[in-house]
């Protein structure tokens, strides 16, 4: 492609977005990176070098938080990719009640995190929650979903999938829908079955959708915080803490410099995972 000024893809297109993003996001972010090197009480600051990072890595809950973050991200993004694709295939096939199903799957995305967190906290109540009542009917003694250290994190992860799978599904649907119908017609002429269609057409051509879902859900999972906060607050104790909730608690306690340092660490961790992955996934062009 020629990169002359007469290119039809004008660099001016970047400008409005760059201005807004630069002023309201990049500038404050750089300012906060500076504060990660200070002891900052919001009212005044004192330069202390890398002490915050040392303190952050000494945080007792950090190791737990790091493992939890990875578990949570893998579980949620894995399930969203697989379930999202399966649901999208189901909802783009010729089944009855398709419109209803599409709406229902997407409903949870529409409810605010606070609402979802509250509702599931109640449904997962160990003694009077609906889930354990239902299990009780089947003769199973359900665990304390959110109060037992063994289950708390996974319970939240499942709710996260419940809330987020609709979005993954819609992205996949949009991807599948934008596949030109000619391919399917040609495949039908060749007498290809559903499985062939899936493997030869849908999977390669919906690749951009797959990449998007993976990247978005992985970043979301690694940064995930609001649902965990709404449901367990990292509890019981520190057992379902993730990095983001450790940072948030420091922020709440007024350790602004320390929590910004934590954010820098989180940013580096997520970037170290996501950037190579995004490069790798975007490198392979679709071959037809």
């Amino acid at each position, binding site marked *: 492609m020629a*990169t002359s000024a007469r290119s039809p893809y004008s660099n*001016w297109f970047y400008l409005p977005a760059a201005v807004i993003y630069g002023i309201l996001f990049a500038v404050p972010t750089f300012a906060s990176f500076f504060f990660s090197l200070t002891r900052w009480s919001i009212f005044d600051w004192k330069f202390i070098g890398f002490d915050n990072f040392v303190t952050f890595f000494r945080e007792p809950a950090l190791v737990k938080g790091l493992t939890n973050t990875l578990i949570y991200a893998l579980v949620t993004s894995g399930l969203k990719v697989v379930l999202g694709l399966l649901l999208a295939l189901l909802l783009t096939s010729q*089944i009855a009640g398709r419109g209803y199903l599409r709406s229902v799957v997407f*409903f949870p995305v529409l409810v605010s995190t*606070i609402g979802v967190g*509250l509702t599931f906290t109640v*449904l997962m109540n160990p003694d009077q929650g609906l889930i354990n009542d239902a299990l009780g009917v089947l003769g199973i003694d359900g665990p304390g979903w959110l109060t037992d250290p063994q289950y708390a994190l996974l319970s939240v992860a499942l709710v996260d999938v419940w809330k987020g799978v609709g979005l993954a599904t819609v992205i996949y649907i949009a991807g599948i829908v934008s596949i030109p119908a000619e391919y399917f017609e040609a495949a039908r002429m060749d007498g290809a079955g559903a499985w062939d269609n899936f493997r030869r057409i849908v999977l390669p051509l919906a690749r951009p959708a797959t990449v998007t879902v993976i990247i*978005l859900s992985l970043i979301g999972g690694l940064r995930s915080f609001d649902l965990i906060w709404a449901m367990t607050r990292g509890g019981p104790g520190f057992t379902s803490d993730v990095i983001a909730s450790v940072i948030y608690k420091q922020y709440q306690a007024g350790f602004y410099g320390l929590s910004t340092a934590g954010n820098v660490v989180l940013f580096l961790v997520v970037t170290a995972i996501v950037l190579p992955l995004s490069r790798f996934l975007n490198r392979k062009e679709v071959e037809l």
Partner: protein
Amino acid sequence: MTGRKNYLLSTLAVLLSGVVFLVPFAFIVLTAMKTRQDAAELRFSWPHQFQFVQNLVDVVQARDYMLIIAFINSTILTVASVTIMVVLAAMVAFVLQRRQSRWNGLITFLVLSGLIIPPAVVPTIWVLQRLGLFRTMPGLILVEVAFGMSFCVLLFRAFIATIPRELDEAAIIDGAGPLRLFFRVIFPLLRSVVVTAVVVQSVTVWNDFVNPLYFLPGDQNATVQLTLYNFSSQYNTQFNLLFTNILLITIPPLLMFLVFNRQIVAGMTAGAVKG
């Protein structure tokens, strides 16, 4: 696939989705119909006595009709910020995908950064104050645009890749400039994904309570998520009113989705790109 199998699959899907997705909603609706004492039990049960209308009235009237103000504010915020966000992000994604240059790596990195880095509250307020936009609706709109753009760019870029370049070339030969090429040729083809982005980001902005809390403080500026605090405090919660409120503020995104859902389906039947 045979018809019968299909039918079985449908039935199964409908039943399963009912249990998994609708039961939690049923809980919200039932709780919204109960009296305060009854709701405080937090059981999944039929209300002892229905008081849905009373709850509605209470929620709407609470704190001097705060909910009405909040609805107006949130609507303005959502419509404006999502419109700006989607258009600007589509322009960025278009050039980013079509034009190979040294800067692409850096731009991609910046886009991802926008998704990864949590916003810095206090410095952002300083910037807004310097610009004279703190505590104003335009300020909050720009903040939402800045924070939401990355997601849209990522989404659009993936789909612009599926539009054949032959289309661009045909348009250029017809004498289209960059603007006309983008708005007349490319943007309409992105319809299904634009709808997706609009729906998702509208929901995000609508359900956002952290940013309004910090960048547009004050009761006269309330947005819908902040009204939840009217009925839920650290020490004491009126669950029936809280869930009525949740129900009410979920209605607009729901309506929007139902309208746009048709659009996505329409996109399907019309067939996508005629290469």
